[in-house]
């Protein structure tokens, strides 16, 4: 993307003026009124191409409320601390992954914001993945929101990560064929129920009975493995 307003900022008042105009233009954008994204694009130019921390901070100030809305819209998340953590995670992802090459390729401000929104979505997906098996209190289910903070579920230290890899390898070693591997992946990694696996793979399994027999046999082999309990302990 080439921008006519891509000159290097000379002082902080110039930056302040850009921020003020960008906020104004974004507000007009949200109200579906005519707007001029030049000031916002110049902030992005300065932050992404020049790696200017002041411009980045300014972008965070301008766009944080929008990121917060994206996060809240994703998953009916009521807990402010969790939203804050996911917003921070979104900011880190954008700063880490949005390269000058992408900026140059972007066709419009909306293209850049789309990437930022995808960062918010990927932060939410990651949280959702790790949250899959975490217990949810009954009252939280009843009022339709989830109140766990990301710090309850995010940390996975290196030892645990290594043990998890070893455990998965151990499960694969105990699989007798490709169907066992498919079943193990669907059940343990993806969290499906045996009935779902059968419904989605009717041409691969002869019957639901075969699915249950295979699962039972796999678990029996796993239980007999002397390393299983130790790895499960480390992972828990």
């Amino acid at each position, binding site marked *: 993307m080439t921008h006519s307003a891509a000159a290097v900022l000379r002082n902080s008042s110039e930056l302040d003026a850009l921020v003020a105009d960008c906020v104004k233009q974004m507000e007009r*954008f*949200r109200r*579906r009124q005519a707007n001029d994204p030049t000031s916002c694009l110049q902030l992005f130019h300065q932050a992404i191409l020049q790696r200017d921390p002041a411009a980045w901070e300014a972008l965070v100030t301008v766009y944080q409320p929008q990121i917060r809305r994206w996060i809240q819209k994703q998953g009916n998340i009521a807990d402010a601390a969790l939203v804050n953590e996911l917003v921070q995670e979104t900011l880190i*992802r954008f700063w880490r*992954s949005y390269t000058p090459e*992408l900026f140059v390729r972007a066709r*419009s401000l*909306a*293209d850049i*914001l*789309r990437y930022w*929104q*995808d*960062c918010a*979505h*990927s*932060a939410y*997906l*990651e949280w959702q*993945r*790790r949250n*899959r*098996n975490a217990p949810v209190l009954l009252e939280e289910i009843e009022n339709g929101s989830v109140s766990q903070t990301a710090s309850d579920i995010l940390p996975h230290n290196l030892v645990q990560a290594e*043990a*998890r*890899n070893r*455990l*998965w390898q151990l*499960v694969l070693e105990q699989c007798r064929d*490709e169907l066992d*591997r*498919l079943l193990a*992946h*669907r*059940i*343990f*990694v*993806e*969290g*499906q129920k*045996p*009935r779902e696996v059968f419904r*989605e*793979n*009717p*041409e*691969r399994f002869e019957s*639901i*009975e075969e699915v*249950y*027999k295979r*699962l*039972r046999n796999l*678990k029996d082999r*796993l*239980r007999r493995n002397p390393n299983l309990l130790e*790895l*499960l302990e480390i*992972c*828990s």
Partner: protein
Amino acid sequence: MRSCISPAEVEVWELEAYLHSDAPTRVVEHLERCPSCRAKVDELRDLHQRLQRALARADCPAAETLLQRRWNQLPPAQARSVDAHLAFCAACRADYASLLGSEPEAAPQVLAMVRQELSLLMAVLQPPTPLPALRGAETSPAIYRVPEKDWEIVLTHATGTRGYVLSGQLLGIASEELTGAQAGLLADDRLVLRTEVDRTGWFVLQPLPAGRYTLWLDVGTVHIRVPEVVVGP
């Protein structure tokens, strides 16, 4: 440990079915009476839950990697590895599809493309190639070749919550050429669904009833038809 009160009533695998609330009444009634089998089910449940907790998405690429794949930011080898995983893992396909579907509040303006000298190409199904372990998915990907172009189309279908999901990717084409590309499905020559092809060549068509379709892809001035695409069991 006490032994089962009546081993002839229940087969071993049926305890696994009971664990997943999928056992016949005969088994449920047996479990109500048999402490030994109940203890076995508790043991099975404990192992099942611990394995699921420990292995949740254990070999899946991080959501950030899917984001980078979606924006064509990965080195070719890593992109291929992610594609292979996507072909196998229904959960990651769902995550990826949700990334493709996350529209900003105002979509970028797309210039209407004037298509002149439209050329029609019929894609041809290639002989199936053996897939390595942990690939293959619930439906093996069907690979089509586009004559006169060095392009391939990889198609897989899976069961979604509201019907079938047909996902595909155009390979061997530069991302710039994909600007404005569209994919659609015809049934009895009527348009059933249409979607944009993203800049990595991915497209997802859903929800779909089972059936035979003609897939069309509109890429710049090239119009591709893939006949006899079977979706469903």
